[in-house]
């Protein structure tokens, strides 16, 4: 009986070996499948196992806005952890980042982009209180159009100086202002001056 899986191949193949090569040109396929399967299993098993550090980052990111983060996570953590974006930027800065990530292959549906925008605007965007337009004020301060217009009207008469100053506009939610106080800019950043 010819051993179909000879451990040694003589420099000069026997007739039987030549026959095997013709009959089973890819005789290592079963082993390849087995190894590949194990590798896939390993990856899946590992994927199912939460990394405490990354899970903590996801929890932190989700705590900012759990509903919208459900749309952020599949798009924005596919290649890196939330640590990469858990800090604040200007809205134009975030748009530049989204564009850069898009160049690396990030893609989303229109609905996902809407939620991603909302998540970043509400939770991770600086706002220049004395220059932002009504839509940006509404999105970040969480105020209605009427209040946003009142903010614009007030600042054309007298610029806002402090968070307390902003809170004095009827319709502005004090709790929200306190929550986002570190992200309120009352003078434009140096590069915008």
């Amino acid at each position, binding site marked *: 009986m010819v051993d179909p899986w000879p*451990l*040694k191949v003589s420099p000069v193949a026997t007739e039987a070996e030549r026959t095997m090569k013709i009959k089973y040109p890819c005789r*290592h396929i079963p*082993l*390849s499948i*087995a*190894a*590949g399967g*194990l*590798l896939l*299993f*390993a*990856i899946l*098993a*590992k*994927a*199912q*196992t*939460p*990394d405490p550090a*990354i*899970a903590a980052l*996801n*929890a932190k990111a*989700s705590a900012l806005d759990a509903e919208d983060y*459900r*749309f952020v996570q*599949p798009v924005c*953590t*596919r*290649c*890196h*952890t939330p640590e990469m974006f858990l800090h604040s930027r200007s809205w*134009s800065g975030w*748009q*530049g980042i*989204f*564009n850069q*990530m*898009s160049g690396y292959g*990030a*893609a*989303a*549906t*229109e*609905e*996902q*982009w809407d939620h991603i925008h909302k998540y970043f605007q509400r939770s991770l965007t600086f706002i220049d209180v004395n220059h932002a*337009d*009504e839509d940006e004020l509404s999105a970040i301060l969480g105020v*209605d*159009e*009427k*209040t946003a217009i009142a903010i*614009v*009207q007030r600042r*054309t008469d007298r610029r806002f100086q402090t968070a307390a100053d902003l809170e004095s506009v009827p*319709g502005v939610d004090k709790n929200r202002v306190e929550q986002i106080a570190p992200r309120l800019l009352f003078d*434009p950043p140096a590069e*915008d001056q």
Partner: protein
Amino acid sequence: MRTRKALMTTASLAITACLAAPGSAQNTAQRAPAAASGVILPYQSPPRHLIYIATPGDEGADDQSGVIVLDADHDYRFVKRIPYGLAASELPGPKISGMTSSIPANKIYVTTDGGSMIAFDLKTDKIAWTFKGEKAPVKLQRRGSAADGCCERPYTLPGGKTLLVASAYNAWWYLIDAETGKQLGRIDTPETPRSHNLAVTADGKLAILATLSGPKEGTAGVAVVDLPNKQVLRYIHFSDAVRPITINHDGSLVYANVNNLDGFEIGDTKTGQMIKRVELPGEMWKAKWADPNHQHFGHGLPSHGIGMTPDESEIWVTDSANDAWQIWDNPGDGRNPVYNPAKTVPIQPGIGSSWISMTNDGKTAFVGDGSIIDVRAHRVIATMKDEYGRPIHAVEKVLAMTFRDGKLVETTNQFAIGDAKAVEARPERERNRQASNQN
């Protein structure tokens, strides 16, 4: 043998990986919801919003020249000045009569009282071509402007490949290839002989072509033109010479400033009738207008400048008697505007503000005295300034343009006119606003 070893190694690695502690791979413990259905879209590069201001404008004395570019994303700070290529001895150059742009050609077009239209390539800021028009059999001249040829107000037709341009106060209009500057055709409007202002519907089917003449000269005010067939459908007569105009989204109504009126008149383009005269309350302007010693009236009339928000909810009219933009609410079918003094926007006194442009989203207005206005707040939020920080007071006119990767992707026209999409969205906006007011 080597193959076998490699396979064994792979298998070992796989087993090791199974047993290893979680490492660098992305955590998916918190399972995200199934991706929303729909087409997967890459993120678009961030847009750059620039304001192109053509100078010198009418009645200007601030010695500006060229197209001044400001950055709308950064507090309207100065970006650059695009020169007309004039010798120093020719500066600041002839008054500009208008400006338009083309997305497919990636160009802007500036018309001058010097008898030409100049195209600038937006990639290089260099002059791409100059169009001079043709000699007129009978020369008409107005305050030092070109006696014949080209050009008064330009307009880019839908699609961006053709320009419709008024001749220099003569009884015809040019159709020009936006890419090459070659003349494609001509529209004659004999009953409105001094071509000046215009507006075109978004579908390109209807053009409203206005003359700088009126009943005193025995002419109509505007020609309603079937643009694809280059045929005048009808003329509309107004009470006096027609000045700036605006139209609603389908071109069924034209709102026109006329001489000797602080306000405007409304014409129905389907019937050819002037259907309403809308005046600012008489006590606000008539005595001032009758007073020969009264202050400056820009362009020689109380109201030279009219536009509407894209959703047509407001009509903005300049008021030289009171140094302000007056605003009429425009409910229903747009035939019965209601003056709303609570929305008046005061502007710089004594300068005059002779026209208005708006961004496509209707948030921002640019007016002739160099003021930049927040439309919803009805407040001046900035003043156009040059590279030396000097206010720009005499401009003619402004385009708010959006660029991505250096390419023009969105533009406005120099007239604030109605927009079908904004009109469609208006009921929902008004419901939201009412709900907001009730809270």
